């Protein structure tokens, strides 16, 4: 039995499912609760997953998100399409936040000078991206991009932080896959320039 299958057994509506429905129905309290729940789940999952792995192994953001969905919602919960979309959009935003928090922690450590100890970074199991992107700078640039072109910023959030494919992103944002491709290409170039400038 695979990891995914083992998690997909619950019959009753999960907490996330309820929260999603409430949020969709306009319940103001539901949204932050939902966010917290997804944040904790993703964070915890990333740590668990990585603690069983060897050093240097990395996992894809998208795998985390899909697993979180299965754990939080359950595979045989008949969620509305719009609820499902809501979750995935939310998850991408959460991933972004988790990564920014991690990066901030690390920057604080760096400011702490040469005396930091390995032990204090145990939390770093959920580390930053393993490729060379500076998450904080990206986050700032993305905020600027959102002002210029909010759809592009959203596409980046989905594609990069959520790790969703072009088709998935198109589906989530209700646009065509070719639009996603084009927006992502332009956004990528724009962000790359902004990041090169700032560094």
């Amino acid at each position: 039995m695979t990891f995914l299958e083992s998690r997909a057994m619950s019959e009753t509506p999960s907490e996330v499912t309820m929260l999603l429905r409430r949020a969709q129905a306009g319940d103001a309290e539901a949204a932050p609760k939902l966010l917290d729940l997804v944040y904790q789940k993703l964070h915890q999952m990333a740590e668990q997953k990585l603690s069983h792995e060897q050093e240097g192994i990395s996992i894809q953001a998208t795998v985390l998100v899909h697993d979180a969905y299965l754990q939080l919602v359950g595979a045989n919960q008949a969620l509305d399409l719009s609820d499902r979309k809501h979750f995935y959009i939310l998850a991408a935003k959460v991933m972004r936040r988790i990564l920014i928090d991690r990066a901030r922690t690390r920057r604080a450590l760096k400011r702490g000078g040469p005396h930091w100890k390995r032990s204090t970074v145990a939390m770093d199991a959920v580390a930053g991206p393993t490729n060379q992107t500076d998450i904080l700078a990206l986050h700032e640039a993305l905020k600027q991009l959102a002002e210029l072109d909010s759809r592009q910023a959203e596409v980046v959030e989905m594609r990069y932080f959520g790790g969703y494919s072009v088709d998935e992103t198109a589906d989530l944002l209700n646009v065509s896959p070719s639009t996603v491709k084009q927006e992502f290409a332009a956004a990528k170039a724009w962000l790359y320039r902004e990041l090169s400038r700032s560094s």
Partner: protein
Amino acid sequence: MAEHPWDEVKEKFNAALSLSLTERELYLKQLSTESTQLHHEVADLLAQHAGANENDFLASLKIGKQTEADLAETIAQFLPTVDTKATGGDAQSLMTLHTQAEIPATSYIGEIGDYQLIEQIGRGGMGVVYKAYQKNVGRTVALKVIAGGSLSSAEDIARFRDEASAAGRLNHPGIVQVYDAGEHEGNHYFSMAYIEGENLASYVGPGKPRLKPKEAARLIEAVCRAVQYAHDHFVIHRDIKPANIMLDKSGQPLLADFGLAKLVGNEGYTQTGQTMGTPNYMPPEQAKGQLELISNRTDVYSLGGTLYALLKGRPPIEAKNLLDTLKKVESAAPETLYFRGSQIPLDLWIICEKCLAKKPDDRYQSAAALAEDLQCFLKGFPISARAVSPWTRLMRWSQRNPLIATLIGTIAATLLIATVVSISFAVKSRADQRLAESNLAMIEKVLDEVLISVSEGDLANDPGTQKVRQRLLRIAQNYFEELSNSHQVSPLRVADAAYLLGRVQSSLGRDDDAHTSLKKALNIQINMLKDAEDQIGALTQIAKTHKEFSRIAEKSWSNRGVFESSDAAKQALADYLKHEKACVQYRELALALGPTNEELHRLLANSQMGLGLGHIQQGIWTPTSDGFSQAESFLLQSQATWDELLAKTPNDPTRLKDSARGHAAKAKLRESQAAAFVESNPEKYEELLTESLKLRTIAAKTLEELPTDAVTPEIRLLQANCFQVCAESQVQLQQIDDAIANYEQALAVFRSLLMSSPLVDSYRLGVAQDQFMLSQLLLSKQDHYGYQFVTDFQHTLVDGLTINPRDAVSADLLLDYTKSISVSLVEQGLFQEALNQLEQAKNMLADIPVIKSDKPLIDAVIEKLEVEATKLREQINTEDRTT
């Protein structure tokens, strides 16, 4: 500077991204003529996009376990690290070393701020350069510190700071990256990438090795691109010289030391007028301290000076001391550059001379223009700096097409040997006969591989090859005569050779000779038919010979313009139809014997389409004939075959091409039918035209589906033609914006064709025609880009006249086009603008550098333009008086 609205930038960026690299270049070029700002934005984004992809930027996010090394890396990310970008992806070859270990305290000579000085590596006009280790980032850098360790004056500080800030904004693989600037206990410094390698000064001076001319040109071309980048960012280097051009380990040049860089438009402390820089490479305006004249062309001079020095081994201007040098810069010409027997190509000297002109206006307009010419030199294209002789043109052509050139060379030699053999040719033995046979086989090979394949490629009209081909043809012809009269070779062989000879003769415009040869071939082929073992082959061959006849006839009727129906043209059309019909008949016979042979089906469809096209012409000339309905039925038959064949192998390039041609032919039929209704039935007219537009669009789309390697110049031409005719129909249908878009497409295709074969007139005329139409259409919409296209078509045609001062077609078109633009402007009441266009054409013509005996044609056009201009001036005066 106002930023272009993001949406527009985005749209153009995505459009450019969807194109192939060459098309993208064209697209950008086009864009730059429309809006510099927009072009900059889009080009920058494209560059960023390439950089992003190269560095896997935003590639799928992975979350990994943090290791200590990771953390160090992340920390380093918060510091300015630019070296990986500056290397263009090849971090190892670029000399920025990421040293992991710190340097032991004993091995460095001093410390400035965060930098441990390792050794002094240079001493410049203003500073000392150290190799240093930057502790917090962990990298080796070159650290430039003001000489003496203290500052001489506030002006020095300002200049020093300026250097750093100007250079710091530049981020280009051809420019040494500046990282950081600062002050430490009164020491001003800045750090830049540490380059392990030599600089170009190692190749200048007595006793030093010389670079090969091509290598020198290649290096300077690369430097030009970097300089252009700096100019685009408003930074002028002002001290380009061999010593400032570093070579990295992979041999790529990097421009260093923007020590005199000055922000364009930001005067200030440099006002004192003191001369700076290295006088040997300095242009007069700089030597004289005329700051107001310093421009990007100041750098162009120094780039030329550097190239000169690399070629000659010493700087363009040399004298005993500084003052003498400065004097010489102003007055003396550099030592004569060219002499007979020089190892250095004349073109390179001409390029140097143009850079080293005393007057900035006489130099290349930009570093990019210089780069273009160097590129032309390297690729064997004509350089813009001079008009070229036919012989040089041929040489250049052979540089571009080394394979075919070699082939022509070898085969010309073998043919000469064959001729010698044939003179002593008297049949004494079977050995002689075998020799004769093999000689004939060789001639066929020559005709087929060299003369025909060359003539059918993009060199069809290349004047550079015409002479050689004529000569080869003469040799081949003589030899052929001799052999075929000697009755020593089999008749079929003679027929084959005669057929090929006929094709070559026809391709060289010798139609009468071609007729004779083809007749000979046809007679033999028909006589041999009944005894032939391979009936299908024999029938196919006869059909081919008829096809060749019809090709010759086609030239006579299709070149006369579709509305001009002289008796000779009508006769040619009748001939054409006769031979096409014969062709169809023989192919039908062949097909009856081999009904499963797909190639036979294809060929039959091909000649059915030929018949269709001929009948369209008949319908145009003789409206009472049944030309159109005949055409309709033939085109239907051929289209059916092609659809069927294409369905079997949907991606076959030949079949895609056939299908496109079929659609284009059908479109032509509709256009021709439409013409009859222009006045009598406008609705019918529009309906037919709209249908033809649809068909042509299908044809164009089909051609776009072809894989890149299947796209020959012939197909590009077909494509351009599709776009052009579509645009023409759209003008008729008043769909002006669509027409503009199609003319732009056509222009892009013609331009790329012209770029690869700059001597083919038909490409040049295509470019000019599209530019003319675009200028007309845009001006009619009061769109000012129209003026740009006027300048463009004038340039295109003047280029044609520069290459060939006797090119009457370019001369006529330049006059006609310019006149008609001027007329339309007058109609809009824009008298002065109309006059300007006439004057502009006149000035361009007057600037063509040709010798006097070549001038009559150009002078005549100038005179006619002047007549028009005078008329217009009088008209303007009268208008002024009346108002």
